[in-house]
């Protein structure tokens, strides 16, 4: 949040990829069994998740910088509670995540995407954006607290990239023909996050997809926050 590039990159890159892929992969909608005839509507879920992955990097990099400059040590000398320190770090990431969601939503509506779940679905989408930012942001803070290095946090980027691409990002899982790829996408939690957002846009109300999406976010957030809190305690004790 402290540098314009940290705000602009997570906004611009996902939209660019959406533009490129929705043009290049439009022909995919002609495959039998493809769930919609609008590839933009299908692909609009991707920026929401991709933006959250960028947020992970931002949260982690900012916190790692605070560790490297000694600012975190100064914070820990104050009476602030550990969760308040973490909350402060994650607050910016969540705000950025919600701003991103507004922008992606606006882009989607501008290019003619209709929300099958209606206005209530949009509210649920914002709630989901909040949860995804919190979940991935907590992973970023955990990485920063464990390693104390901005470079190490940046080193996570290729791993997230792999999770994103080996998922149902560009094609529904049931249409993936290569078995190992379909299995990997099925085991990949990112597929379910994408499918939760996608269900609100192209299906309407799909309880299973939403429960899986929110559930996975909650599990990641609980694990990420608990381990971050423990890592912060270890760091404060040094």
């Amino acid at each position, binding site marked *: 949040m402290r540098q314009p590039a940290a705000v602009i990159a997570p906004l611009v890159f996902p939209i660019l990829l959406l533009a*490129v892929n929705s043009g290049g992969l439009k022909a995919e909608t002609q495959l039998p069994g493809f769930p919609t005839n609008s590839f933009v509507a299908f692909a609009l879920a991707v920026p929401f998740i991709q933006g959250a992955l960028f947020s992970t990097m931002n949260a982690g990099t900012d916190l790692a910088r605070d560790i490297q400059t000694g600012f975190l040590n100064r914070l820990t000398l104050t009476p602030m509670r550990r969760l308040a320190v973490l909350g402060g770090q994650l607050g910016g990431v969540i705000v950025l995540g919600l701003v991103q969601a507004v922008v992606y939503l606006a882009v989607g509506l501008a290019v003619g995407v209709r929300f099958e779940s209606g206005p209530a679905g949009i509210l649920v989408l914002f709630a989901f954006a909040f949860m995804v930012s919190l979940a991935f942001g907590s992973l970023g803070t955990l990485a920063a607290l464990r390693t104390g290095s901005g470079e190490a946090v940046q080193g996570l980027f290729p791993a997230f990239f792999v999770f994103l691409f080996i998922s149902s990002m560009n094609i529904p899982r049931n249409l993936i023909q290569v078995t190992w790829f379909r299995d990997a996408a099925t085991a990949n939690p990112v597929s379910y996050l994408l499918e939760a957002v996608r269900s609100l846009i192209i299906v309407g109300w799909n309880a299973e997809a939403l429960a899986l999406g929110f559930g996975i976010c909650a599990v990641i957030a609980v694990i990420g926050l608990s381990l971050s809190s423990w890592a912060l305690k270890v760091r404060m004790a040094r």
Partner: protein
Amino acid sequence: MKTLAVARGVAWRTLHNVFTNPSLLIPSIVFPLFFFTAFAGGLSRIRDVPGFDYPLGYTSFQFVFVLLQSAAFGGVFTGFGIARDFEGGFARRLLLAAPHRSGIVLGYGIAALVRWFFTATVLTVVALAVGMNVGGSGVDLVGLYVLAVIMNVAALLWACGVAMRFRTLQAGPVMQFPVFIVLFFAPVYVPLGLLRGWIHSIAVVNPVTRVVEAGRGFLAGSPTEVGFAFGAGLALVLGFSLWAFRGLRKAEAAG
């Protein structure tokens, strides 16, 4: 001769660093393999889209794009090295030690090529191992790899020009982003004929489209638009040569 000596020295040092540092070597190999896996593996059903007429199947179709992409990004990664040299001051040593400075650009170019040959070999072996079909003859395949070399050189010269103007690694996105855009505004996932709307209009005028389509033609053994593709590629090389050497002059003027 002195220019060649400088080029050899610069190339040796760049390659020495790449091949002795996994953090520099691995991304340039892993990323193309990853894209190949994600595109060829995940999207293979696209061959069932009505109008998809590439005879060798989707793996071969994607191999050509990923090969050309690896060539272009191989050039860009070498551009990162040039920017790093300017940022750390090593480029000043090269400028001072090299009697003939054009050899510096040539040396980086040789390094980019050798580095990409390594990546291309790994990518080709993996593609053949997972069952990529090849329809073209030896001559056709030479055509495909020469096109990739042209992409590598063009991208390197572009990145070199940027690196020498900005002289900092912070210029990385400026090197990378336009290359990414030009590559992805070509027919990446489906043949040009299946693109619709605005992206089709852009792809038609994008010179990289000709290179990608000609490359796919070479692999299939039915070369198409060869003259146009080589013409477009060589025009890019020529244009970016001027860009790179003017960048060198700007770096010299800035000291």
